[in-house]
């Protein structure tokens, strides 16, 4: 039912399917590379001898694996699906061939740069945000190129109304831009190194706001959009429910953003943020399942295709895995469950059921559906595709089941206590590692099976491509006349019942969360009354509400603005209080001592080698953590950490209080051959640290940046900084000598030892410092009270 009228002009357009083909090929190639690196790092975890060189060690390759799978494999797949469906849903060719091309080649160039820099140890040291600052800028620029091309196409569309797939694409384009830019704000110290402007808890919050929502808006929303377009196409069935689309889209994009702090549960993170993180994750369960329901139920009446059509098989399995991992996510966000699961393989299993099941299988379904159409031919082999499906499914199940067993088992062992709960049942960390070795082996099997399936897909698509020839679809479309789309004014966008009730309700909820005692509960009661009013109003005039929404759908800019507001709110509310409120409230009577120049150099090596991939620096407020690693971590202890290194996985023990635990010689032996001091360890050896020199040249610049970021270094000129570093190195070398070890004071190992021996040392702030509230936060006119303020503990 197009809006065609007799007077409408028609025209024939040719879609830009070339860029779709390019992205498809790139996705498959990078997918195979990324998964291969995944199998390699899984092998390295089990066989430490496979850490063959400094550039071929787990700590450096694991970021390569995650970045390749997320940004190269899923990224290219997403662009492929978005470019194909957007053109058809807009009945318009992509606005600019140049921008499409620039987007494609720019993105591939970024991937190549990442694949070179990460193994070289050039990293920012934050998960999924490891790429160095020049690459960050390229990513931001290319993303903006994509955004311009996309929104320009929307503006030139010949279909007045925006289909649900486009809603999800809009949210992706907007949100990733915000997340990426904010989380990568840094000050460069050289062409390949920078310090993030955030430190400690602020860095943690921003990082996981980004990290969690990279999952949401890079791995989920665009793929949901792809589901909404390609699944009904493949099944030839109408989508199950339009109103479910509306409810789950808006609730998903609004709630997802708040859930980031669930990566920091039971840590030193203020409790109000932990509670928001946990409960928004729980409230996210239903919106996520809304997408799953809309996908699965669309198949009603077409279930027979599940037996015959590999595309439907992949889509349905993918949506089922999506349902599984979005149920698992909220479960893992419950603080009590998280106490067991966090830092364990359970999390690894969780992300892989999402990445392999949801993303990987959606990609497979998409490519098997697209390739024949893009090349005007048939799929080369249905039976190969079926085989891919089965080997992939079994591979995922083996992988995920192994990680469940491994994660739960190790989690239980690490937290187990005896002697009436006063002593650890398994005091030796390595004992818990040894017990999961078999499961770590099964992971390799599962992952390798999945990789074989993906390679088969590559060959199948290649043969399909060779049997056909590239065709660009042409179509006759009716050109929209002025006034048939994009007519909504600012006033119509914001001044209406649905929006007023939404924002009014939200404001009252915020009042409940942040207002002082008395006012908060009043605000909650008002919110309840307000919600009841809104329900009444809606049931009286829901046709008016629906009409407003349908007219919103014919206006791309107002729709995008509202989406922007929905996704921006959660981040603003969680991050601004923590960043702007004077940090004194967040330091809990512990102030970190700034790192000496040598320690700072060591810390940069620690980050560069990717130690954070296996070692956390955050002792949680849990007795087993305290017994095993020492007194629980306080926020103040990481206020000068750019970037924070709280970590998210403990393949090895926590290092927050590693300083002074062992003599220098222990670390000296340990880094050369970890098994000499820790029998059964799977840690790589680091022989190159003993020969390579640490970077003295950039140290003055690094310290200057630190000072700029508010770290109270004493005045030192470049020579003093270098001398200071070498003098401390000589001191350590001297102590090593008495312990029978020979080393040079300017080698990396000395810097690393200096850093490790510093971990866990702090100052206690003096009374006057407490009163002055040092160090101050970023000046900001509004300073909302934090909920935790009203629950000061006795100490």
């Amino acid at each position, binding site marked *: 039912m197009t809006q065609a009228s007799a007077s409408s002009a028609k025209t024939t357009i040719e879609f830009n399917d070339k860029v779709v083909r390019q992205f498809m090929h790139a996705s498959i190639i990078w997918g195979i590379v990324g998964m291969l690196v995944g199998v390699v790092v899984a092998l390295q975890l089990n066989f430490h001898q496979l850490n063959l060189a400094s550039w071929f060690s787990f700590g450096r390759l694991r970021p390569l694996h995650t970045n390749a799978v997320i940004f190269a494999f899923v990224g290219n797949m997403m662009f492929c699906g978005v470019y194909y469906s957007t053109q058809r849903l807009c009945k318009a060719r992509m606005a600019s061939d140049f921008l499409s091309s620039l987007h494609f080649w720019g993105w591939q160039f970024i991937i190549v740069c990442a694949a070179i820099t990460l193994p070289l140890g050039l990293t920012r040291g934050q998960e999924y945000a490891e790429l160095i600052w020049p690459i960050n800028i390229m990513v931001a620029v290319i993303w903006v190129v994509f955004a311009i091309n996309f929104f320009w196409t929307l503006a030139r569309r010949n279909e007045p109304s925006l289909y649900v797939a486009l809603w999800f694409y809009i949210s992706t384009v907007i949100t990733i831009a915000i997340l990426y830019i904010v989380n990568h704000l840094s000050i460069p110290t050289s062409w390949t190194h920078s310090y993030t402007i955030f430190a400690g808890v602020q860095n943690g919050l921003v990082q996981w706001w980004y990290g969690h929502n990279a999952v949401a808006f890079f791995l989920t929303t665009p793929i949901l959009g792809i589901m909404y377009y390609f699944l009904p196409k493949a099944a030839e069935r109408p989508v199950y429910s339009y109103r479910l689309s509306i409810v789950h889209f808006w609730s998903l994009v609004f709630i997802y953003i708040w859930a980031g702090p669930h990566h920091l549960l039971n840590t030193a993170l203020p409790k109000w943020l932990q509670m928001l993180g946990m409960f928004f994750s729980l409230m996210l*369960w239903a919106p996520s399942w809304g997408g799953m329901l809309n996908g699965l139920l669309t198949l009603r009446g077409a279930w027979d295709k599940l037996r015959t059509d590999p595309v439907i098989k992949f889509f349905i399995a993918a949506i089922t895995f999506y349902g599984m991992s979005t149920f698992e996510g909220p479960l893992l966000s419950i603080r009590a469950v998280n106490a067991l699961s966090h830092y364990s393989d359970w999390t690894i299993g969780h992300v892989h059921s999402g990445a392999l099941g949801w993303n990987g299988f959606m990609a497979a379904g998409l490519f098997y559906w697209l390739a024949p159409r893009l090349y005007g031919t048939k799929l080369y082999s249905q039976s190969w595709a079926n085989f891919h499906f089965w080997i992939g499914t079994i591979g995922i199940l083996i992988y995920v089941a192994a990680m469940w067993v491994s994660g739960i088992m190790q989690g239980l062992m690490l937290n187990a206590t005896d002697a009436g709960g006063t002593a650890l049942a398994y005091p030796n960390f390595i004992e818990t590692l040894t017990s999961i070795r078999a499961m770590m082996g099964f992971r390799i099997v599962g992952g390798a099976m999945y990789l074989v399936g993906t390679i088969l897909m590559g060959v199948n698509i290649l043969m399909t491509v060779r049997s056909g020839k590239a065709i660009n679809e042409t179509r006759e479309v009716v050109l929209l006349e002025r006034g048939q789309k994009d007519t909504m004014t600012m006033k119509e966008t914001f001044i209406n019942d649905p929006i007023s009730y939404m924002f009014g309700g939200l404001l009252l909820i915020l009042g409940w969360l942040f207002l002082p005692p008395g006012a908060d509960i009043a605000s909650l009661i008002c919110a309840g009354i307000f919600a009841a009013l809104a329900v009444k109003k809606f049931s009286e005039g829901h046709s008016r509400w629906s009409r407003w929404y349908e007219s919103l759908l014919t206006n791309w800019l107002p729709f995008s603005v509202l989406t922007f507001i929905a996704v921006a709110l959660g981040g603003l509310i969680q991050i601004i209080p923590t960043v702007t409120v004077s940090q004194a409230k967040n330091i809990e009577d512990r102030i970190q001592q700034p790192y000496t120049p040598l320690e700072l150099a060591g810390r940069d090596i620690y980050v560069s080698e990717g130690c954070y991939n296996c070692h956390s620096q955050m002792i949680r407020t849990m007795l087993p953590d305290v017994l095993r690693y020492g007194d629980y971590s306080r926020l103040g202890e990481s206020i000068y950490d750019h970037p924070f290194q709280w970590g998210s996985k403990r393949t090895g023990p926590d290092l927050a209080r590693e300083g002074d635990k062992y*003599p220098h010689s222990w670390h000296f032996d340990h880094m050369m051959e970890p098994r000499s*001091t820790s029998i059964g360890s799977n840690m790589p050896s680091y022989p190159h640290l003993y020969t390579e020199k640490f970077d003295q040249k950039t140290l003055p610049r690094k310290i200057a940046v630190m000072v700029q970021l508010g770290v109270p270094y004493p005045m030192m000129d470049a020579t003093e900084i270098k001398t200071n570093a070498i003098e401390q190195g000589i001191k350590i070398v001297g102590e090593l000598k008495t312990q029978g070890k020979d080393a040079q004071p300017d080698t990396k190992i000395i810097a690393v030892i200096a850093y490790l021996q510093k971990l866990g040392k702090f100052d206690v702030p003096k009374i006057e410092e407490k009163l002055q509230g040092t160090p101050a936060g970023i000046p900001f006119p509004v300073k909302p009270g934090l909920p935790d303020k009203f629950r000061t503990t006795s100490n």
Partner: protein
Amino acid sequence: MDPSKSINDNRPILREHVYDGIQEYDQKLPNWWLFTWYICIFWFVVAWVAYYQMGRGKSDVEKIDAAIAVVEASRAKALESVDDEKLWAMSKDPKVVAAGEATYKTTCVACHAPDLSGHIAGAKLPGLPLIDKEWKHGHNPTQLLSIVRKGAPDITKGMPPWEPQLGIARVIEVVAYVLSKHDKADAFTLAADSPLIGSSAPVPAPAVPKAGGS
């Protein structure tokens, strides 16, 4: 189950608009789904009100501090009855010694060697020998116990405190195991670099800022 074929009043609405061949039903939201969501939202409100508005529940810091206090009390209690005589007696108890040996084999061997010699294949390990008669930090069983519990006075010299990680019971067992290699009547000497030389004071407690649950 195909909704389009059902002929009751709840027949789903098929929306007219077609997007590139795709149509949409406008089915009602499933009730179980809605109620799952309502329950999650309700839980959030209840939990927040209970914690922040009604002051129910303890903060994480209160909880962990209380748990640490319990552990410290239990340690103090375990140590009350421990003295030199008791430890020597334990070193003759095969059950205690076997338990101590098991802990030694997993925790201490890396530095002190399987045969307690502090050497492996002739090479010196970071740990001091525990079978000779020369002691750096004193030969009294309680002095030994103190070192294992709290670590060496100068922590940079090696021995970390093991009490938090192993628990007081295992520490006592390990000390009994080491003592089982000695006899009360042996003649012990102090090492030349012993911090105890020149002072008759007992081993001072190490000045460790991190009280790691101790």
